[in-house]
Every structure is written in C-alpha cells, then in structure tokens.
C-alpha cells in the first residue's frame, strides 16, 4: 500500500512547509515528519508529508546492483 513518490525539495517555507518538484510539477507539502532537510534534497512523499530523505548514494548503489545481473556467472 502506500503510494509514495520521490520528489526534490526546491523551496523551504515557513514552519514545516516546503515546495517540492517532480518532473516539473510543483506541490506544497509538509516536512513535519523529517529533520535536516535542505533545498536540493530528495524526500519520499506520502499524502502531503515527507516520510524520509532519499539517500542518493544508496540509490546509486542499488542501481549498480541491478546492473550486476547479467554480468554474474
């Protein structure tokens, strides 16, 4: 369950408000459930709230893992 999307934080507003961008579409969301988010960070968005930050290094690592398939014996 739980439709959630990775989005990029493009603006931090007052309180917990922030603006995020996904493919050129922007939305106002809340950062109340996360900490230390900066402009340029990616977060996982669910029902208008960021649930966690996305770790770009881990994302790259995962993609590299995918690419291993086919290379292994």
């Amino acid at each position: 369950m739980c439709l959630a999307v990775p989005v990029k934080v493009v603006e931090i507003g007052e309180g917990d408000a922030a603006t995020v961008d996904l493919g050129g579409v922007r939305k106002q969301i809340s950062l109340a459930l996360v900490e230390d988010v900066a402009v340029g960070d990616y977060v996982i968005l669910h029902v208008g709230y960021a649930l966690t930050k996305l770790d770009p290094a881990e994302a790259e690592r995962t993609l590299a893992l995918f690419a291993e398939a086919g290379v292994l014996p």
Partner: protein
Amino acid sequence: MRYIDEFRDGELARAIAAQIGRELRADRRYHFMEFCGGHTHAISRYGITDLLPPAIRLIHGPGCPVCVLPIGRVDLAIELALEHKVWLATYGDCLRVPASEGLSLLKAKARGAKIAMIYSAADALELARRHPGEQVVFFAIGFETTTPPTALVIRQAAAEGLTNFSVVCNHVLTPSAITSILESPEVRSLGTVPLDGFIGPAHVSTVIGSAPYEHFAREYAKPVVIAGFEPLDVMQAILMLVRQVNDGRAEVENEFTRAVTRDGNGKAQALVSEVFELRRSFEWRGLGDVPYSALAIRESYAAFDAERKFALETRKVADNKACECGAILRGVKHPRDCRIFGTVCTPENPIGSCMVSSEGACAAHYSYGRFREIAVKAAA
C-alpha cells in the same frame, strides 16, 4: 523523473529476470508473499509476472488497508455522515467500499451526506478550520505509512484548541498482519500454503525501519527482503529471496536502502506513540480478530476521538457467504477459486474487499491478470 524512471528500465528488468532464471534450483518452486498492496499494483501494472520464470509464484498478502477494513467500520463513517450529519473527510480509496444496506460513502453522498474526499490529513484539519460551526470527522485508514500524518493533525488540532475536529482511527500494523499469516493453520501446520519468504513493504518500512521484521526471520525461519516500490526493486528483491532460499538463510535484507534504515523514522515513531496506543484486539476483514494489531487514540487526546465523542459502537458484519476474500487475503485461495469472481463480483459491483481497492488481489487479477487465462489470437 529522477529516482523513478531509472528504476523502471525494461532492459535491466530482463537482465535481472535472466539472472533469477539462472539461479533457480531446478528441483523446486519458490513461493513469495508480497505483502504490500503497492507491490501488488506494481506487479500487475508492469506485468512482472510475465518476466518471471514460472517456478516463482507470487502470493498477494493482506497489505491493503482498504481490503482489510471491516464493513462495520465503514458503517460508522456512513452513520456519522447520515445520522450525525458531520462533514466526513475520507481518502479516495474508501469512497466506493460497499457497506451495509447497499450503501457506500459515495452512495451516502448521493443521499445528501457531506462527504469530502481529501488527499492529505492536513486537508481534513483545514476543513474543520473552514467550517467552525460544524463537526468534521476524519476517517483515517492506513498502515504505518499513513499513521504519522494522522498523529500530526490530531496534535495540531489540540494545539489550536479545535472543538469541531475528531478522527475515527482505523490504523493497523504490518507486523501483526504478517504474524497472523504465519500463525494461520494453512501456513503453520497444514502446509497447504507453502510460503518461502516475504517481499517486505516499501514505505511502511521507511517509518518502522527493517528491525521489526527480524522477529519473523528468527521465529518462523522465513526470509524477508524489503523492496522498493518500483518494478526493478521488486525483481531485485525476488532475486535476493531466491538466493536466501537456496542458501538456507532466513534473514532480513533491505533492497530499498535509499529510503529504509534499520531504525526507521524516529521522529515519526515518537509522534505516533504520543498520540496512539495499541488496541487489545481489532477485527480485520478476512482475518478475523487479530490481537494487538491496531491503534486507538490515547486518553490524553480523547477529545479528538470520534468513537468516544459520538459514542460509536462497531457492529460485526459478516461478509457475503460466497465471498472468498478471507482465504484470498491469507494467500490460501486465488481469485479464480472464488465462485462469484468476475460474474457477480466485479470492480463495478464489488462484493468483497479484495475487489474494491485496485490493490486488492481480485481487482488486480480482474483488471490485469484475467486475460492470461483466456487464449487470445491476433489477426493475420
């Protein structure tokens, strides 16, 4: 779209599928339960089953909060709207769930009920602010992913001293659902449902972390691989599960490392504990009463608990006798085993919960999988 498109690459998918094929043991089949409704949807939408070798069998589990919501609870929402005449704020997913007396929230709306479809818990709070003279009730559903936002708005309502906002809390817990599957006779003793491992939910795990699943791996000797939401995540997780089974391991592995850590989101967890507490028991549609599986609003926030405020009593409502949702949710039966699947029970006229939500096993099979069982030939 960044972090989405790369995880939907068809070529990589075929490479991973080929790798899975190479690592399969010839002498066995592999049965994995994908617990999360979002995974059910991804598997259907991307046709992942087509890419997997037939020795891999995916079973849909009860990870769909709409599917496991008892009719009696939807009746509460309808009662609040039609009899207590409140503004009833609900996520879109609940609108069409058939409840008692041929009603649904959508049908109640047609009868004049003030039903507001919302996208976010914050919208429900905003509704209360905008209608200070009227009672607003938020019908909250969802697993651990959707619970923290509800906790937030309850706390906010308290801070603002709102007297016209309350919540019907139907939040349920993932580990309890998994336990009830693993404890079911078909899995535990009878072995009629062979279960070799779990594809763990993606976004629930961002909140609760991977730690809670370690219990299952240990106690029941079943591997768990937490998988991201995108089709490549699911395929990679299947590969990791195959490897665990082949190696005889039963561990918790995390494929969704870009968003899931062992401890999860502490801030969200603390917030949830502050506002909610465990219910001793809660009825899950299709699974019966499951102990310590759901949340209720704490005494300290009682003013925002609609069940107390409106003295609501949940009635137990039995499912249609022909409905096999219970067995399907436990992975014991397949939608095609249900007598009324596709005939009486269709997405247009859903009899049971598995057909209502697009994540439900029956709806998914009806929309995406049914055609595979019927021969189709293309014209010359």
